[in-house]
């Protein structure tokens, strides 16, 4: 195992833990995309560039966008609910 591979494995272990302990969903999403980048590095140093290419776009663009939009919708609904309660 090369130094790069050990470093990538360590980054994934730390990143995965960081995603779990992130305080709220919004921050969790941002940590998740950084974690995705460490996964990309892992796939790359373990000689799976095809997987790395998919992972980098999915984890840094695709997944965070969908989670952020869903969070936004949830907040909209909550705010609407509050407004209706006030009336």
């Amino acid at each position, binding site marked *: *195992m090369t130094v790069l591979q050990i470093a990538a494995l360590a980054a994934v272990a730390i990143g995965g833990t960081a995603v779990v302990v992130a305080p709220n969903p919004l921050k969790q999403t941002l940590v998740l995309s950084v974690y995705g980048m460490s996964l990309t590095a892992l796939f790359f140093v373990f000689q799976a*560039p*095809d997987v*790395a*290419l*998919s992972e980098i*776009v*999915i984890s840094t*663009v*695709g997944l965070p*966008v*969908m989670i952020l*939009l*869903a969070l*936004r*919708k949830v907040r*909209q609904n909550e705010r*609407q609910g509050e407004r209706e309660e006030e009336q």
Partner: protein
Amino acid sequence: MSRRARLVMFGLAGAGFGVVLVLGLAGLPAFGDYKGVYGNVINGIGVTERRATDLVTALNFDFRAFDTLGEEFILFTSVLGVVLILRQMRGEQDRPSQREAEEHSFAGASAALRALSLVLIPMLLALGVYVVVHGALTPGGGFQGGVILAAGPLAVFLAGRYLRMKTVAPTIVEELGDAIGAAGYALVGLGGLVFAGVFFKNFLPLGIPGHLLSAGQLPLASIAVGLEVSGAFLVAFSEFLDQALVVRSGPGGG
């Protein structure tokens, strides 16, 4: 259940899991020790039999192309599900909430983010097309390139223009890309059935390894999948964006 009981349960389950995990890991082959036969066979015959230099793509779109057909339709069907669940109800009308959709799509679209997104758009599109058409030559292929292509119009949205994104990638184009790509990949397989007698058997000239038009059906299959994947992701993104940014007003209000 009390906190104490839960901790005891976790302790028991965790200890059991740990024992099984250690036993399992102890039986693993040494790092880098590969005993598989399939990989070595593909590595041996990939370039001579299929003239493809990226054997992962050769596997996906040729040796086990039928699996990929199923995988492709998994994506197609899940996007179909998203569209179905988030569809506009009868009587509802789209009313872009002025503050959100018109110019400034979301709070915090700073000048730096907009400028960076504008720089990224052509780069993403060029990289996406490159990855799709070079699927048989270098790492990548239809799926990877398709996702990169879908990120291009998304960068238009990041630049703060939701309605502009609708202009560069109208819903009908996204849906057509999704559908034509999905059908196109199945048609490549059908071509094999018609011209070579077996579903997904290569029926195109193989060419010279390393050339853009080589490896028989691989470039064609790669382009079809690229179209399908980019279309599918854009349809899903659009549906999610519509949910978050467009206020629906039905007959019953709200």
